[in-house]
């Protein structure tokens, strides 16, 4: 497989910056598409269950739009800071890349912190996932997104350590960063659907 890609590359690529073409980013894209299906399934469940309150509190009683707005702003800013980091990475600027990764990490951490606070408040009020079908589907969908963001944060730390440990930004590290950037921006796309269809549409 590796030899095949290298020989293919020798045939059709004579550019000054010569590197064997990798398909791992495309493979990661395909993974993201399957992840998309997972989220689509959870959105479908929420759409079906969103009015099954079992006599319990409704979305209008529970959702605080101000908190959601702050979470949305944080995630949106973290998307562009990761973008700045990738631009620095492609220019080979390690220090700037690490700075933007750190900013993105802190923003992601703030997002997760706010989400955990929101969830623990709901559970403390007795409105946990066991309260109604609406809350079960809400927690499943939003927590799955939160879990993805948390794993993205762990991944970010690991990549930052790799960048620190290796002298130069290698092609492999850049490829991994590219995958993580796709993952991070993808989670932002999912969050657009979450704040629109879960939070805003429920209180509109």
């Amino acid at each position, binding site marked *: 497989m590796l030899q095949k890609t290298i020989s293919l590359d020798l045939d059709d*690529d004579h*550019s000054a*910056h010569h*590197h*064997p*073409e*990798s*398909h*791992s*980013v*495309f493979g990661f*894209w*395909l993974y993201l*598409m399957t992840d*998309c*299906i997972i989220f*689509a*399934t959870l*959105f*479908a*469940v929420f*759409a*079906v269950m969103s*009015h099954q309150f079992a006599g319990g509190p409704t979305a209008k009683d529970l959702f605080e*739009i101000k908190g959601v*707005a702050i979470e*949305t*702003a944080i995630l*949106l800013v973290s*998307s*562009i800071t990761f*973008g*700045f980091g*990738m*631009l620095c990475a*492609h*220019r*080979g600027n390690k220090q700037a890349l690490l700075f933007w990764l750190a900013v993105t990490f802190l923003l992601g951490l703030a997002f997760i912190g706010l989400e955990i606070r929101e969830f623990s408040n709901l559970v403390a009020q007795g409105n946990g996932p066991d309260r109604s079908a609406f809350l079960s589907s809400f927690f499943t969908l939003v927590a799955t997104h939160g879990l993805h963001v948390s794993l993205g944060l762990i991944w970010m730390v690991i990549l930052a350590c790799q960048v620190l440990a290796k002298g130069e*930004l290698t*092609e492999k590290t*850049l*490829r991994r960063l*590219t995958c993580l950037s*796709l993952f991070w*921006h*993808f989670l*932002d*796309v999912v969050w*657009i*659907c979450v*704040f*629109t*269809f879960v939070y*805003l*549409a429920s*209180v*509109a």
Partner: protein
Amino acid sequence: MQNPNVHVVKSSGASHGSLGSYIVGFVLSVILTIASFLIVTEHGMATSTAIAVIAALALVQVVVHLVCFLHMNASSQQKWNVMAFGFTVMTAVILIGGSVWIMHNVSINMMSR
């Protein structure tokens, strides 16, 4: 600021965009997000109208993110990415639309709604 001749990594199915595309994407996203929140919090419209409008805004914002942040485009390099994405969208539409349609009919026939 961005030198287009520097392509350190060559990976099939990924371009890395420019500062301009990130800024444009960010500004558009901020405008669309604020519009969505204002429509809901300012209570200007009927519920069904408001939901239709914020759904449309979300769709536009998803496209903005795909183009500006995930760097999707119509180039031949991205052909398979876009094709996989199209298939995923189709699957998601069938999944969500079908579920809502079927469960709506169930509710009507069971007179539970």
